[in-house]
């Protein structure tokens, strides 16, 4: 088994404030994970805002450099401080999908121009027929077609369509890895499932691995193979998605699961959260602890 992406003991610290009021924010604290080439999977990072999940994603994309540790993609260290050629080659392999499609696209630019510039840059083609074929192929994968998209501006499409177009753009260079940062949180409820199902079919039919960042445990359970749960920069639990979410072990994971609103007792108005649970999860913030293996293959932080 060869590794596609290897994240080894990565930490990221940000320093805030001036000389007299210096404060260090530990955004990510020694995170490790790896994805293999042979088995495409959806790897989910769950956490609340401020848990460091987006920082971790930015480091995987090479937009930030880790303070310590190393991230390598196919054996090469990920960094934005490399030559242009090497950087482009990396970008063709790891593509991002962002949270809000209306902010990801320039409202004054037609959508097909984005697709076209991506195709030109990564496929190194300049003939019209070839470009259009590449654009149409990527759009077909997400259930759109070039005829639908051509000449349209972002405001002329619905949020769901636009997010699909954003995924199509990311698919043009045929990347083996997508990094999707909360791709459904800005999309309407009725269209959310079409995006989630799309990510699932990308994995199953096209063999694309996806790093799926979310705070929604229900969709994470629905699509992911493995997941990590992050609390304030620390990985508190990691393992098979179903095993972890069916029976979370760390107090914070349990709290997250208990906070998911279920529809089973619709109308009964049960909303209480056990205050003991919140307190217990809160106490563990800032304690370092260590990750230990469990027989079912998961890693849990113990103190």
């Amino acid at each position, binding site marked *: 088994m060869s590794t596609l992406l290897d994240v080894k003991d990565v930490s990221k610290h940000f320093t805030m404030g001036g000389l007299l009021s210096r404060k260090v924010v530990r955004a990510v604290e020694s995170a490790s994970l790896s994805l293999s080439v042979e088995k495409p999977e959806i790897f989910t990072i769950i956490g*609340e*805002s401020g848990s460091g999940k987006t920082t971790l994603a930015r480091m995987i994309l090479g937009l930030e450099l880790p303070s310590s540790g190393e991230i390598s993609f196919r054996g090469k260290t990920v960094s934005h401080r490399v030559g242009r050629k090497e950087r482009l080659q990396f970008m063709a392999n790891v593509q991002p999908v962002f949270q809000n499609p209306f902010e990801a696209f320039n409202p004054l630019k037609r959508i097909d121009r984005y697709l076209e510039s991506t195709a030109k840059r990564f496929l190194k083609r300049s003939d019209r027929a070839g470009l259009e074929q590449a654009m149409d192929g990527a759009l077909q994968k997400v259930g759109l077609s070039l005829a639908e998209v051509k000449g349209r501006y972002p405001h002329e*499409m*619905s*949020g*769901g*369509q636009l997010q699909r177009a954003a995924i199509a753009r990311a698919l043009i260079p045929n990347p083996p890895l997508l990094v999707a940062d909360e791709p459904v949180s800005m999309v*309407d*409820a*009725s*269209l*959310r*499932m*079409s995006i*989630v*199902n799309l990510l699932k079919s990308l994995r199953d039919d096209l063999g694309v691995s996806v790093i799926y960042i979310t*705070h*929604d*445990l*229900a*969709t994470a*359970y*629905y699509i992911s193979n493995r997941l990590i749960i992050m609390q304030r920069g620390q990985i508190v639990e990691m393992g098979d998605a*179903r095993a972890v*979410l*069916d029976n979370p072990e760390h107090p914070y994971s349990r*709290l*997250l*699961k*208990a*906070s*998911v*609103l*279920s*529809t*089973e*007792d*619709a*109308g*009964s*108005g*049960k*909303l*209480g*959260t056990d205050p003991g649970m*919140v307190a217990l999860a809160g106490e563990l913030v800032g304690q370092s602890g260590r990750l230990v293996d469990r027989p079912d293959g998961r890693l849990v932080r113990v103190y």
Partner: protein
Amino acid sequence: MSEDLLKVEGLKAYYQMNYFGVQREVRAVDDITMSVRKNEIYGIAGESSSGKTSFIKVLAAAIRPPMRIVAGSVKYDFKGLAMDVATATPAQIEAARWKHLSYIMQGSMSVLNPVRRIGKTFEDFAQKPLGLRGDAFRQRVLGHLDRLKLRPDVLNAYPHELSGGMRQRVTIGLATVCHPEFVIADEPTTALDVVVQKEVLALIREIQQEMGSSVVFVTHDMSVHANMTDRVGIIYAGRLVEEGPTRQMFFAPRHPYTAHLVASLPRIGDTTQRPALEGRPPNLANPPQGCRFHPRCPLVVDKCKSEVPPLITVANDHRSACWRWQDVEPLVNPQAGHGVPA
């Protein structure tokens, strides 16, 4: 049946624009008839551009051109003050605002003035409707903050010093400090994390029960409706398409759109393939003929394309606007799978 606090009848509110000689009319609220009872939480669900925000703007009596009420009435029956938003004078609206009719807004960061301390914002907001000054006012606010589980020193804080959940609790405090009879909550928890979301929802419910007021709760997240509301109304393309008690809406929906919304919710403990609804919400400037849902509807027949289905009573307290309501089946069993223990 308890008494109605709000009665909306045949409400039509359109955006009418006339730019450079081109007339445009957007029918954001088209013929809605509903009522909100005393002491209940009424949920409104609908996607963006379904007209739900326009509808609650009318309910909140915040109608600004180019929006206009074209027909219908919105009658409130407050204690000692009955008013119809369609004909109310500015003085009447002013008298009702905050004291009787209040509003919890979506983005807590943009609601609070970033350069004013929370205590000052409370003064700006509530001093006039409460008619209290100085120490009496401060005591009243502190008593209310205590109920919201906020420490007194938040009054000296600036908005950016508080966390998202605390800010949202402050906006709830602002909206409820005058003990209004009717509160409109517009997506109050959308920007919050799951743990905080649940706390804030529980708080709104607690406050509502203590004050005995009615709440109209707007969100597109059906799982919030399931846990929060007593009744839910679904708005699609400017029309109310289904309305009923929350439990019935989830277990026995009578409109294909509702059935879809419920079915598309993923759940922990269940990995069966979830259906996704194709198509997009219609453009309200040019809505489809007949039933506005027909281009996306799995049960569509010819009649749907030409005739608008009326909102009829299909079960006790349950109304649906669908020609084929009898054929609507819940797409998934809401109790399948072992799910999350409550």
